[in-house]
């Protein structure tokens, strides 16, 4: 989509009237839908749609030897894939690093929970996120999909046989991972240093002069703040973003609890 003068003017005129080109409110996020556990070959999976942006996350658990500097910990390897099928534009791989930081900083799971036998065997969770349809705000969709997939993952019980020193997997006894926090990302797009909109679409992101992503955990605990350059923001605007992020966290948490509850009743 070429950045034409008309598109920017049109966007500005909408924003000055406190609404958005697609008809939504300035402070409102697009319709979010989530589907958990649809891929049976993956140990945990989730599909999240934020408006038109669709991201699918598949988690596969494998055995690995824990790293020598942390023998009591397992690890999580996230990977975000933006294949050519999601958009006709080329995007870079900043997203994978962002997700890795979110997992590390917000401590979604205790890495010690992933350890089976200290120094010998641990779980490694490969989280692969594929963007199926790109319409802006990939980071929010990825964090949500990752969280939903991790909540869905069942890990079988493993014990090390003393005599043979081999792992014995008990597929009949599966347990959920202990998810300690629920980080929710909220992204904003900045226009001309003053106008801020939450949950930007592809077109809005392309026209924006800066972006900001806030990752909020429970009780207003900030996990991560990502502002890669772009136009500046005053402290007051930043505070607004934080409070919006807190509200968004509640919305997303409620949605996820509902979906998980409906799944348990099946």
């Amino acid at each position, binding site marked *: 989509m070429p950045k034409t003068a008309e598109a920017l003017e049109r966007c500005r005129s909408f924003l000055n009237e406190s609404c958005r080109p697609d008809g939504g409110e300035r402070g409102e996020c697009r319709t979010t839908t989530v589907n958990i556990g*649809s*891929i*049976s*070959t*993956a140990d945990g*999976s989730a599909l999240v749609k934020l408006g*038109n942006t*669709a991201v*699918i996350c*598949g*988690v*596969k658990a*494998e055995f690995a030897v824990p790293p020598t500097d942390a023998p009591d910990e397992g690890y999580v390897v996230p*990977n975000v*894939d933006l*294949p*050519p*099928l*999601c*958009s*006709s534009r080329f995007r870079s791989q900043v997203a994978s690093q962002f997700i890795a930081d979110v997992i590390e900083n917000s401590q979604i799971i205790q890495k010690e929970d992933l350890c089976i036998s200290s120094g010998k065997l641990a779980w490694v969770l*490969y989280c*692969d996120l*594929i963007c*199926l*349809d*790109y*319409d802006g705000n990939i980071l929010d969709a990825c964090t949500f999909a990752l969280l939903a997939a991790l909540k869905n993952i069942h890990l079988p019980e493993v014990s090390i046989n003393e005599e043979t020193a081999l792992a014995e997997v008990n597929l009949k006894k599966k347990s959920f991972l202990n998810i300690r926090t629920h980080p929710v990302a909220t992204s904003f797009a900045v226009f001309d240093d003053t106008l801020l909109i939450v949950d930007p679409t*592809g077109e809005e992101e392309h026209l924006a002069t800066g972006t900001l992503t806030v990752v909020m955990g429970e009780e207003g605990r900030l996990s991560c703040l990502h502002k890669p350059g772009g136009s500046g923001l005053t402290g007051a605007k930043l505070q607004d973003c934080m409070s919006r992020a807190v509200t968004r966290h509640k919305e997303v948490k409620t949605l996820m609890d509902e979906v998980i509850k409906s799944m348990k009743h099946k």
Partner: protein
Amino acid sequence: MAGLELLSDQGYRVDGRRAGELRKIQARMGVFAQADGSAYIEQGNTKALAVVYGPHEIRGSRSRALPDRALVNCQYSSATFSTGERKRRPHGDRKSCEMGLQLRQTFEAAILTQLHPRSQIDIYVQVLQADGGTYAACVNAATLAVLDAGIPMRDFVCACSAGFVDGTALADLSHVEEAAGGPQLALALLPASGQIALLEMDARLHEDHLEWVLEAAAQAARDVHTLLDRVVRQHVHEASILLGD
């Protein structure tokens, strides 16, 4: 042979189907807003997505442009979590490249490329869950996606896999049946004319048996055609209701 019996004495397969029976197929067109055409198909437990961009100007070197027809570019990608064991490389490995090539050859036969000279049509296929018959699911999904994009085709392209066990030809193999190691045939058919777009088999099969296996695959492909036809008509019907005709 110990272990799993692929075909019981009463003629039932591992998942309870009859020899010539297809798995349950569900498909939807127009699932993504960004792309020109998109479709999602589920054949049993195999889930595949196809997305079409085009026809558009050739990306990259202009010298690749063909003066009298469109270039068809296919890419096959299989998610790392799609199989039982985690796959290391989703794109760029030999199997993906080979699949991409086969898809391209199939669709070059079906799309009326002479109507769009010097342009490019991109078909991207993503397999989310693989349970046998991935080539067939990809072709079926891609057909729907190409139709959704409004690109003119000679005919539907319907594909199905077939195998041969205990003197009987089986249609639409699942992963268990494929892994058993018998001969497998993948067939892509243009149903109206009965022409074969692509036929692929690498295994030992007696020439007398080939006819039966081919017939089973062709009949299954025609059944797939009936289903896909219904999906397209349903989609058009829904779209025309929304337009208020």
